[in-house]
């Protein structure tokens, strides 16, 4: 147990905790401004923004001795008896001085800077800076040069915190970025011929406390204050990074990592970050259709629900393919529906797209080879209903053996259905229902074509490759004409009102042992489904 005093308030820290002054102050709700310090990176204490008064209380006498000069809070460990003063006149003067110095060389081109609105330099200057600029400098246009395909550098906006440099050295281990020149001529740059080209490059934009590093994909797309942040989970791979979907009026502009110590810490990969273009692709399917004698006919959803149910019940043996892009709740509802139509319905896991091998970075961040978010969760549901894991590849043979007449295939794949060729399900098949985002050979084979939802439009939970279940609400509404899978299955089951993911998850947690830990309210960082299994 260590007692630390911040601005006269005592904080008890559990023994073994290695916190610095910024972190301890944060526990009391006191913000110590800082640029260069980041919890995921090493400490350099170079920005001098977090300067505070420090001291030590003598454990025997209780006498407090303060240090003569200010020291950086990020570099001062909070041990027993450490005293921090973050609000004295001396500290305030130091902050104002740092802010003034940073602004001497800053272009102050906030009106055109993408960071404006979420910029630390703006916020700290407003709070801690002088109200007037003493230096006689006019706003100017910042010099700009690309440092990689995904990131561009606005040279003059930089405050030389070197977070980006440390990121490429410590987290990715690629060391593309460096500091060139000395003193007030210091600049961030890359070595000639070695651009910033690693798979986590987008993170340097998040790390940048000012507008120096710009995201090429997002550049000038939207001012940040128009966007709303919706907590969600990345659907790019089986790692399942916690993210924020930043949207305005049902259009996603960017994805940002959300801190989650158990999954992605503070980072996310470029593939996930920039992998949302398919959400707004003009090629997306947006109207449900039925194949008739005289070609395709559009069907209303309300009519479709009735028609599908009638035809499926009349068809005989039934099989469903649960895509690894479905949420746990959706997969469960579809499986329940399949079993209500045909008590022996075959339930199979959809194709799992994989690409290369898992890629792990020095600090443990991993990009998974499995390019779908919920294989774990859907496989558990398939196993529960089917008894064993029925893979998609085995399905045609099983269908032929059991004389299956109708098949429901759920998709949700980012681009095309993984299999490019038409699939032969045998001559017995009378009714093929395909639910997907984009057209594919399978889509053309279908009797019913149902447009599906993409990840940001779904509500529910994904289970990542380490059995961590994370729940999320929908971030944007689907395009007109699309009904989200969960809502469709909910209506097919004849449940009243709107699809309630939480209600379904509670049901799943009661029914399936694997999901038992999900019966409690799910924390923002998710819940480890193995917790209860290990206890058994």
């Amino acid at each position, binding site marked *: 147990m260590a007692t630390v005093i911040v601005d006269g308030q005592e904080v008890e820290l559990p023994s073994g905790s290695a916190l610095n002054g910024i972190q301890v102050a944060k526990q009391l709700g006191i913000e110590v401004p800082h640029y260069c310090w980041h919890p995921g990176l090493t400490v350099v204490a170079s920005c001098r923004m977090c300067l505070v008064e420090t001291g030590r209380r003598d454990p025997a006498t209780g006498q407090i001795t303060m240090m003569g000069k200010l020291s950086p809070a990020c570099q001062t460990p909070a041990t027993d008896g450490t005293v921090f003063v973050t609000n004295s006149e001396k500290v305030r003067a130091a902050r104002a001085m740092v802010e003034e110095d940073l602004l001497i060389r800053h272009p102050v081109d906030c009106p*055109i800077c993408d960071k404006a609105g979420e910029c630390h330099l703006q916020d700290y200057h407003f709070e801690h800076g002088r109200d007037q600029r003493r230096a006689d400098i006019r706003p100017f246009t910042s010099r700009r040069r690309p440092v990689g395909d995904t990131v561009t550098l606005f040279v003059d906006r930089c405050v030389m915190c070197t977070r980006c440099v440390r990121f490429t050295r410590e987290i990715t281990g690629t060391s593309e970025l460096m500091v060139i020149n000395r003193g007030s001529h210091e600049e961030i740059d890359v070595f000639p011929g070695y651009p910033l080209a690693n798979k986590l490059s987008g993170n340097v934009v998040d790390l940048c406390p000012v507008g120096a590093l710009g995201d090429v994909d997002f550049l000038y797309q939207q001012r940040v204050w128009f966007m709303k942040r919706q907590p969600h989970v990345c659907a790019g791979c089986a790692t399942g990074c916690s993210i924020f979907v930043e949207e305005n009026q049902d259009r996603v502009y960017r994805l940002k990592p959300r801190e989650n110590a158990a999954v992605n810490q503070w980072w996310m990969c470029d593939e996930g970050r920039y992998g949302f273009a398919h959400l707004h692709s003009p090629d997306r399917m947006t109207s449900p259709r039925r194949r008739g004698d005289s070609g395709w006919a559009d069907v209303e959803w309300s009519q479709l629900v009735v028609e599908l149910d009638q035809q499926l019940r009349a068809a005989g043996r039934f099989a469903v393919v649960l895509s690894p892009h479905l949420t746990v709740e959706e997969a469960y509802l579809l499986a329940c529906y399949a079993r209500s139509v045909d008590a022996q319905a075959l339930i199979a896991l959809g194709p799992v797209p994989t690409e290369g091998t898992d890629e792990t970075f020095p600090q443990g961040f991993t990009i998974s080879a499995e390019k779908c978010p919920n294989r774990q969760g859907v496989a558990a549901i398939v196993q529960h209903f089917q008894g064993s894991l029925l893979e998609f590849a085995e399905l045609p043979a099983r269908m032929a053996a059991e004389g299956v007449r109708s098949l429901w295939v759920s998709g949700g794949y980012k681009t095309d259905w993984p299999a490019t060729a038409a699939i032969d399900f045998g001559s017995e098949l009378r009714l093929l229902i395909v639910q997907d985002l984009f057209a594919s050979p399978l889509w053309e084979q279908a009797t019913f074509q149902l447009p599906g939802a993409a990840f940001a439009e779904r509500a529910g939970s994904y289970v990542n490759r380490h059995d961590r279940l994370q729940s999320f609400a929908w971030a944007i509404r689907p395009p007109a004409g699309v009904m989200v899978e969960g809502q469709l299955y909910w209506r097919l089951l004849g449940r009243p009102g709107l699809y309630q993911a939480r209600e379904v998850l509670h049901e799943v947690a009661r029914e399936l042992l694997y999901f038992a830990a999900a019966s409690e309210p799910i924390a923002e960082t998710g819940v480890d489904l193995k917790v209860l299994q290990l206890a058994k």
Partner: protein
Amino acid sequence: MKADDPRIHWIAEPKLGLAGSMYLPLVVGGLVTTAKHLLSPKVTVSYPDQEPEIANRSIYRGVHRLNRDGQGRVKCVACFLCATACPAHCIDIVGAESPWPDREKYPESFTIDELRCIYCGMCEEACPVDAIELTSLYNLTGRSREEMVFDKEKLLSVYDATHKQEPMRSAAHKGAP
């Protein structure tokens, strides 16, 4: 707020005297006002035969214009502050990288729905580079709603038409980021 709230200050209705209850003095008073205006110089104008005179053009809030910078390019830097300040949500901007080496961002498209606008002048107040200004043009007409959605070219042409009689309010300020 409830009727027994202590912050409410109740005022009793003044009692009418004899003269007041007869109404005659008030009727006479009204007629005196009418007679005064009958004899005083007229302030109404018979629009549209006669155009009204605008006393101070620089504070009149009529049709918007987009100012040009020293080189004849649109002065706007697409910062979206006008669109943010606009209470009627009538400004729609698409920002893009500028084609000029000395400027970073510019509006690829800039439209104002003049029918939706309430002419409050918040946009020109918000503008950090004094690119959007309200002119003294008040007689705005059009044959369709679409015609009344002014695009960038039309807003620049308003500048071309008005900048001689109404000079830019901050001609001295050249340092546009």
